[in-house]
């Protein structure tokens, strides 16, 4: 077992044990925080497929996070008020069922990602960073000024959505759902990295020409990576909305895109558990620094700066050493 693998187990187990302890110690808020870590890590794992594996620096993943959130918000709001989502050409009712909401969130995010990706991937480098940002900003302003679902005020869902056989209102059970999804997606992402697709995508990141000469189109590979990545981030968005029982346009804001990126950098780019470590560190900082100083973001900024400047490879890179080529 390599050092990184052991470290990954520690992180994965830690994220499971902390809320279990909190459950035993009757500290429900720690469970809520752990749930937040799991969800944000999920968003990060999604972005990491595009960013770490594919080298696509998307500064607009908040778009998919927000779409996932609104998929949940809109479906649940209609279910809450018993007003059908649409009646023509066929009747669609709202729903409070998590699996359906997740599916919708992922499918819609993926569809939007096909559109955004198809256009954005014509550019590269800084232009790609900026055009993805532009698309997210478009959705942000749209969400603010679109009155049907609350605009700037957002949408409140009074009761968390349901999952067959579980009581999602119990913090530890909702955590269990999020943790399970996180682990499934991490396993998927690990397989993906080793698959023929992952190999070709990673090659396209390093050398576009090489991939073309062996008869594969980097554009198609990247678009697929972007779409998969968006679907996962969209799923995270739906869970995040359920955690808060609330969605608002801030889920689309460029700060959100930046934050998802921060998780990856803090944890380590292209590391399987990087986003988990990064999200955990970020939430802990927010939780422990917040009460100490009103100006806690100064410390957060300083830490981030130090990581980028001196601890390249993030938390996992620093602790586990240089990435070994996996085979």
């Amino acid at each position, binding site marked *: 077992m390599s050092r990184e693998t052991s470290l990954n187990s520690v992180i994965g187990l830690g994220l499971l044990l902390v809320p279990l302890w909190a459950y035993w110690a009757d500290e429900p808020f720690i469970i809520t925080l752990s749930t937040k870590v799991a969800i944000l890590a999920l968003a990060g794992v999604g972005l990491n497929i595009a960013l770490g594996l594919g080298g696509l*620096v998307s500064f607009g993943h908040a778009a998919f996070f927000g779409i996932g959130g609104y998929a949940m918000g809109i479906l649940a709001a209609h279910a809450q008020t018993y007003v059908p989502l649409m009646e023509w050409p066929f009747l669609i009712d709202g729903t409070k069922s998590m699996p359906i909401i997740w599916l919708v969130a992922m499918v819609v995010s993926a569809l939007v990602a096909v559109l955004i990706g198809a*256009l954005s991937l014509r550019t590269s480098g800084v232009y790609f*960073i900026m055009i993805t940002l*532009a698309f997210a900003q*478009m959705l942000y302003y749209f969400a603010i000024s679109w009155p049907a679902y609350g605009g700037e005020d957002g949408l409140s869902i009074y009761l968390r959505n349901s999952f067959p056989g579980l009581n999602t209102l119990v913090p530890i059970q909702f955590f269990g759902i999020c943790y399970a999804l996180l682990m499934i997606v991490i396993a998927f992402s690990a397989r993906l990295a080793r698959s023929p697709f992952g190999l070709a995508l990673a090659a396209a990141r390093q050398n576009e020409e090489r991939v073309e000469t062996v008869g594969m189109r980097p554009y198609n590979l990247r678009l697929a990576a972007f779409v998969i990545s968006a679907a996962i981030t969209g799923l995270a968005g739906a869970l995040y909305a359920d955690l808060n029982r609330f969605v608002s346009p801030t889920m689309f804001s460029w700060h959100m895109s930046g934050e998802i*990126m921060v998780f990856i950098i803090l944890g380590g780019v292209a590391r399987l558990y990087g986003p988990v470590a990064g999200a955990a560190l970020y939430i802990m900082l927010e939780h422990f620094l917040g009460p100490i100083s009103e100006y806690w973001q*100064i410390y*957060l900024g300083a830490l981030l700066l130090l990581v980028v*400047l001196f601890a390249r490879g993030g938390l996992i890179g620093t602790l586990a050493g240089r990435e070994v080529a996996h085979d």
Partner: protein
Amino acid sequence: MSLVLLIEQVLNGLQSGVMLFLMAAGLTLVFGVMGLINLAHGSLYMVGAFAAAATAAATGSFLLALIASLAAAAAAGAVIELAVIRRLYNRDHLDQVLATFALILIFSEGTRWLFGSFPLFLDVPSYLSGAVTLPFGIQYPLYRLTIIGVGLAVAVALFLLVSRTRLGIRIRAGESDREMIAALGVDISRLYTVVFALGAALAGLAGAMVGAIQSVQVGMGEPVLILAFVVIVIGGIGSIKGALVGSLLVGLTDTLGGFLLPQAFGLFMDASSATSIGSALASMLIYILMAGVLIFRPSGLFGRA
């Protein structure tokens, strides 16, 4: 809708365009010469505005305030260049985005720590306040005219600087070939500091000039920063000419879109929903413009492919 109103709106678009240019010029210079994406550019804009407001409060002189904004922003720029930015030149864009994102947090909260959470006061000096009457009976604020003048003057000065002076030659050389200019014996790290400080000073000046008619507060730089990025991406990153064209395009699109779209929608729907849909679309318009430009010219209007 009268012609006078339309002309006035065009002037407004022009004015917001030239201010954007001051921001975008520094951003594009820094990218062109050093290959760096600087998200903290908006913080320098804020530094300029706060320095101006503090100076104006202490001395009562608007001119001194403008000088202070230039000096403070240039100094802040030089300091972060020396301490942080120069370590980022050889990094990939991702590291640059993250490090400068961190700088935004530090600058914003640091400014709030120093100046408090309340907006500061900075006003147009009395000799520039009020409106003047232009041909066709257009009433237009003198200060906004001044902004247009200053902005265009800076643009001209910048073109002269880049095309005529030794510094300009080095900047252009730095854009095309870094090793080359190092080989010529130019102290490249000093050149970088100077270029960065110059860009910062322009941003600071914009912050101070705009601060006098808007509100001087923490976070004021961020919306402008995003707009400035839209500008340089439309214009082509690294191109000063592109920054100028992009600024005017964005300024005019934003102003005229916000003004004309609701009216256009009003032609075929009731006033209230036209206003609300038109305004919604108007707020997305520049991003639509940017996406459109990039789809047809993936390196912007004047960018090198």
